[in-house]
């Protein structure tokens, strides 16, 4: 049963990811990206990572996919709805992807038996203890870097605005 759930969710993820790359309409691509990210959240849930499932939905589907939709709707041009989204270098890109995939195959096959068999345990408390205990310093450093990036983005967009 859990194998069935896992593989059907994986199929959703893969098919929608293909759609993101291949569809001509940018908005459809953005919507399918949302579906793809939600599918990844579903895969997390089927593997028993409950906290990761919720935060994936909250941040990626409710935040980033919506932000992408905003970008497409506010700054898109009508040509983006009809033109091919792939240029002449698609063969080279495909080759690079294939090589990367081959490089990672060892880890993929190692994790091939990851389908959950035991009943999942809640992970939130343990994650919280790790984040605020053992990994407190890296966690704070990451948040500092993110804030710096945010401020930097605001500064750069302001600076460009001043020029006519």
């Amino acid at each position, binding site marked *: 049963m859990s194998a069935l759930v896992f593989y059907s969710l994986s199929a959703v993820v893969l098919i929608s990811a293909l759609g993101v790359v291949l569809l001509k309409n940018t908005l459809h691509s953005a919507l399918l990206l949302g579906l793809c990210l939600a599918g990844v959240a579903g895969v997390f849930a089927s593997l028993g990572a409950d906290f990761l499932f919720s935060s994936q939905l909250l941040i990626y*589907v409710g935040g980033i996919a919506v932000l992408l939709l*905003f970008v497409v709707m506010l700054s898109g041009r009508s040509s983006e709805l009809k033109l091919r989204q792939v240029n002449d270098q698609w063969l080279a890109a495909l080759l690079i992807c294939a090589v990367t995939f081959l490089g990672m195959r060892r880890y993929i096959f190692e994790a091939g038996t990851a389908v959950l068999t035991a009943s999942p345990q809640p992970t939130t408390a343990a994650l919280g203890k790790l984040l605020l205990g053992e990994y407190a310093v890296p966690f704070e450093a990451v948040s500092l870097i993110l804030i710096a990036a945010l401020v930097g983005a605001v500064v750069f967009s302001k600076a460009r605005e001043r020029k006519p």
Partner: protein
Amino acid sequence: MILKGRAWPTELWDDPWKLPRYRRGARMLAGLSLGALAAAVGVGELGPWLKFADAELAFASAALGLPDEAVDAAWILVKVAAVVAVFVAAPVVIVWWERKISAHMQSRFGPMRTGGFHGWLQTVADGIKLLLKENITPAQADSWVHRLAPAVALVPALVCFAPVSFGQALCAADIDIGTLYVFAMAGVSVMGIMMAGWGSGNKYSLLGGLRSAAQLVSYELPRTFSVVPVIMFAGSLNLTRIVAAQQDYWFGFLPKWFIFYPVVGQLAFVLFLIASVAETNRTPFDIPEAESELVSGFHTEYSGIKFSLFFMAEYGYMLLSCFLLATFFLGGGSAPLPFLKFIPSWAWFFGKSTLLIFCFLWFRWTFPRLRVDRLMDFNWKFLLPWSFANIAFAGLCLLF
């Protein structure tokens, strides 16, 4: 009748209690409430009944030679059916109630004819009308996006009810990350609204959809952060455990509900209430569907059942907000005074939720609409900083 030349029903009489109709109505209301209360006390807690039903089901399935999974599957079906029933039936009642309240606030009667008694069947008739209406897809529409949008908006609203604890041992899915799960799922609905705005192929819809998405995404932040103190006090994201943390009493009479925690609780409650009203797109935060400027925004081009799905999602979120407010701040199913414990927890829970629903309806017909930039200012410059400050206050509270 002593009407003194004034109009029924909200103008003042010198003494409304002299009206026989007024007294009859009050008696009826009191009788209905007392009857419901007596029925609730008579039924008692639902936990033992469920245990009994579970044992009976297990016995029956063993007698029929079915595997253990059959009982689990049956329970899942029953839970889903119960949650869906609440989700579908509640808007019917709330819409009627809302129309009556709005009418009485505006010196009107509201629905009076359908069903005989104060138009109580009006919403059912409207529902049937919406089901039978033609489904129109505009020629300019992005057909698949247009068709899928209502489902994407509605399904998360439905799924959000899974971890809500309706009383002792009454929880469809008792998951450890309940709070986070509800907020995560509610965030997915924004996609549906944006899809509706875009897919309709109408500039007003697109504007409404974008405004709505901007508002929902912004108000989600203070809404989530205002609950953080509750999570800190309860020490868990599980809604059942959050309720359990509020069961006791201070000094034997003041319930340990989170709203009664000094300063932090009240601030969190107000922030969550305001953000919830905004999240459900209701006045004073109904800019996304402002009829006068946007011809009702993202659902302009929807008709029939597709329109009513958006409507149900909106009322579903309102109901969910009331359930969450009752759970986080008003102690869920716990009694306000120790000697009132003979009333079962689910009755307390639904009573509190009903009161909160009344507040939502009351706000809608009391406050004027905010301008779109004021709306954003209010969120980013008032609600969000205070919700951050509140987390710090909660930390101080826990420290001392």
